[in-house]
């Protein structure tokens, strides 16, 4: 049971994430001036659902905060509070606190300080109250227009129900102990309206009986002669007696919903003064509705007086007379009002990710068998057995299965607005966010892993890219800096861009810094693009002061290594004075890799194409031995260390470098030239993990099955290059 609840709670947290995204989008739209009823209702519903679930799982702080937030939203929804920029701003910061509360509920963060946000929400509510009082307050009409019948709304208000926020405390609190001999007398006559709503008085009485009630008598004096008898009306009045130790609240609970329409009298009979059996003295307990709503004071329902009952009966009669005897008209045509594709909740089912992965793996096998088959058949046979058709279908299945794992990149983008608001507050810069292509779908695994690089890129853009307001004004720019976040798919790649309209990269300073840090030699001749790339070099940081924002000991080099670990790469494009664009180019999926099939010591390996810079056929003298263990290749003046398969995997390789090809690969740790015998092919390969079968092997990222059925190992370039720089080749080969 507990496991089951944990599982449901996990789903609730997912819903929270979805809800927060919806709320944030709605609030951003409101900030941008879209205050349509639909937008406001969307935000309200999202916060409302979070509150509902939070209560169910006992997250009291989250519930309480969401409740207050929802109160404001409800008033805005009802048009009682205008969504002015000031109010929207309060809601945006409340949203941030709400997100923090959700993190707390997940156990990922300490409880946020929500005092300021609560106070701001309170103030919004209070200001609205003040406005009401100053304006034409909807004062209760002094005299009812319809003679004899008090407005039914009044009756409704005064005879509302217990606003019991469900809590276990209610049950723990000892009920007011009553003298043993005391008892309750309950008179109950259901209304016609209650019957029309499918209330069954006998069930109610049965429920009272389970609490210990017994029927004392049934008053049948209201039953009319048979010809006047309406089978849909109620005529009986039940009188029950209930032991005095039953808490009043428990009795009230039974009548909760039928109370306003029906005659319910509950009187307490103390031992000293036993009440007459049949004519109990009604005790009217009135509670101001507003007090009941706000204070969560245990609210004691009241009993209908004869006058109210009369009023209600008259109202019912009036209603009946006014309404033709036709079915209730169908609800307003919701469909035609706003058929928004986004809100068209498509039918979904939740599937265990492991099942999808298994399916993807099987489809991968299918693709492989397909190419094996193709390899083994003669070209004529291939056409005859309709192999191309099979290949096409297989490919379609593969694409479709992969799309099952795809999710809108929106999830990765959702943290950004909040982050920028914080950054804006920290730096004092005015920042506007523009988002494009949030619906672009990417593999779930990729989405999970680009969060950190994206965070860093945004921080970098806000901190280093954008100028201060003064600087911008001095440069004749708008005081508000823009960060544009976009995603688009091109072929099998996803391009995620973070573009700022700030000062651009100061290449002079970057170059000077790189020389100072020993990243490049003082006489190196670099193109603008190469200088820009230096930002991603390990250990590079140009911030003049280590700021709280992006100067946290990690730099853009971490972004690059994270992205490369995903099989992607980072590109930087900068125009001085106009801004900088960082582009992450990512694979659509982590299950398929764009690879170069190479031979090393006669064995085939897959080199992830994302790491490959270029391939060279070395000229004589281009490869130099700088020590007995080290060879380098001269690449237009830059010396790149050369690695041989022999050294890496202890393979037998006695070729001369000059007879081989050198593939220059790049990683976080720099460039390395890998010596390969030949380059066979370039193709997409299905990655098979080795984790379950073998211990991790340094330098190998997995395996794949090639078209001829043979196995090729996939090289892990990061690990290989790291080995080069940190270990002696001999140590590695061991």
């Amino acid at each position: 049971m507990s496991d089951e609840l944990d599982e449901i709670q996990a789903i609730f947290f997912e819903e929270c994430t979805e809800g927060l995204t919806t709320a944030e989008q709605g609030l951003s739209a409101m900030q941008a001036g879209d205050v349509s009823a639909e937008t406001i209702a969307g935000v309200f519903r999202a916060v409302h659902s979070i509150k509902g679930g939070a209560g169910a799982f006992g997250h009291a702080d989250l519930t309480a905060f969401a409740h207050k937030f929802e109160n404001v939203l409800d008033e805005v929804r009802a048009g009682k509070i205008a969504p002015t920029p000031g109010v929207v701003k309060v809601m945006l910061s409340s949203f941030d606190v709400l997100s923090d509360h959700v993190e707390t509920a997940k156990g990922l963060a300490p409880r946020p300080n929500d005092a300021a946000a609560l106070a701001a929400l309170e103030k919004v509510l209070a200001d609205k109250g003040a406005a009401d009082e100053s304006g034409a307050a909807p004062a209760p009409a002094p005299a009812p227009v319809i003679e004899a019948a008090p407005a039914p709304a009044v009756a409704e208000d005064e005879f509302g129900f217990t606003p019991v926020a469900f809590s276990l405390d209610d049950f723990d609190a000892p009920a007011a102990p009553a003298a043993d001999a005391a008892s309750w007398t309950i008179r109950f006559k259901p209304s016609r309206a209650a019957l029309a709503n499918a209330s069954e008085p006998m069930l109610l009485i049965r429920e009272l009986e389970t609490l210990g009630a017994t029927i004392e008598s049934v008053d049948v004096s209201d039953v009319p002669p048979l010809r006047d008898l309406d089978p849909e009306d109620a005529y009986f009045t039940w009188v029950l007696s209930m032991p005095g130790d039953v808490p009043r609240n428990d009795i009230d609970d039974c009548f909760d919903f039928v109370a306003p329409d029906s005659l319910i009298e509950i009187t307490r009979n103390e031992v000293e003064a036993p009440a007459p059996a049949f004519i109990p003295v009604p005790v009217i307990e009135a509670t101001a509705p507003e007090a009941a709503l706000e204070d969560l004071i245990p609210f004691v329902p009241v009993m209908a007086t004869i006058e109210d009952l009369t009023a209600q009966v008259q109202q019912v009669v009036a209603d009946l007379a006014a309404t033709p005897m036709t079915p209730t008209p169908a609800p307003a045509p919701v469909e035609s009002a706003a058929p928004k594709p986004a809100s068209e909740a498509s039918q979904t089912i939740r599937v265990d990710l492991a099942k999808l992965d298994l399916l993807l793996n099987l489809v991968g096998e299918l693709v492989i068998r397909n190419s094996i088959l193709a390899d083994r058949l003669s070209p004529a046979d291939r056409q005859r057995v309709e192999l191309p058709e099979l290949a096409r279908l297989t490919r379609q299945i593969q694409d479709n299965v992969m799309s099952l794992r795809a999710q809108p990149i929106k999830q990765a983008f959702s943290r950004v607005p909040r982050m920028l608001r914080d950054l804006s507050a920290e730096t004092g810069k005015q920042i506007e966010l523009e988002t494009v292509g949030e619906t672009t779908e990417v593999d779930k695994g990729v989405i999970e892993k680009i969060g950190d690089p994206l965070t860093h890129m945004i921080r970098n853009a806000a901190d280093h890219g954008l100028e201060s307001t003064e600087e911008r004004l001095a440069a004749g720019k708008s005081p508000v800096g823009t960060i544009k976040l976009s995603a688009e798919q091109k072929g099998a790649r996803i391009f995620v861009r973070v573009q700022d309209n700030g000062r651009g990269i100061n290449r002079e300073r970057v170059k000077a810094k790189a020389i100072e840090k020993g990243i490049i030699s003082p006489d190196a001749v670099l193109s603008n693009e190469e200088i820009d790339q230096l930002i991603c070099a390990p250990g590079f940081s140009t911030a003049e002061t280590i700021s709280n924002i992006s100067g946290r000991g990690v730099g853009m080099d971490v972004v690059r290594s994270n992205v490369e670990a995903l099989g992607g790469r980072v590109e930087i494009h900068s125009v001085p004075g106009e801004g900088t664009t960082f582009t992450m180019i990512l694979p659509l999926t982590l299950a398929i890799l764009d690879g170069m099939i190479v031979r090393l010591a006669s064995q085939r390996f897959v080199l992830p194409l994302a790491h490959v810079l270029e391939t060279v056929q070395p000229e004589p003298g281009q490869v130099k031995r700088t020590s007995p263990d080290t060879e380098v290749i001269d690449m237009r003046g830059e010396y790149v260390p050369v690695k041989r398969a022999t050294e890496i995997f202890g393979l037998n390789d006695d070729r001369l470098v000059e007879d081989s090809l050198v593939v220059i690969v790049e990683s976080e740790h720099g460039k390395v030239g890998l010596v390969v015998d030949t380059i066979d092919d370039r193709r997409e390969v299905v990655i098979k993990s080795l984790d379950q079968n073998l211990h991790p092997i340094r330098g190998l990222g997995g395996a794949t099955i090639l078209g001829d059925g043979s196995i090729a190992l996939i090289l892990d370039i990061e690990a290989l290059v790291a080995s080069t720089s940190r270990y002696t080749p001999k140590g590695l080969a061991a």
Partner: protein
Amino acid sequence: MSKLILTVDDSASMRMLLKTSLTAQGYRIESANDGQHGLERMDEVKPDLLITDINMPKMDGFELIEAVRARHEFRGTPILVLSTEFSDEKKARARSAGATGWITKPFEATKLGAAIRRVCP
């Protein structure tokens, strides 16, 4: 045959929570994720009891209740509202739409059971 309850709520976790809680109390559960879907499901499963949320996309709980009550075959079907709201105004609206009872979220299993027994034998 145990009683069949249709639960309508746009939150999957709430639907699952209801299902877990009510299945344990011996009910059979069907569910729907918004008012419109709920109305369709009413016709399909013809439940003994409808439990519906109020704030939902497309068709809210009030509209659903009105639409269900307007059908002759569901005139006697009890309808419980399950909502975090508890204002008298909302309850009055639910009553005039045709609701039989009201349960305030978060619910406690035994109280939910009692509320159901009060309207559904």
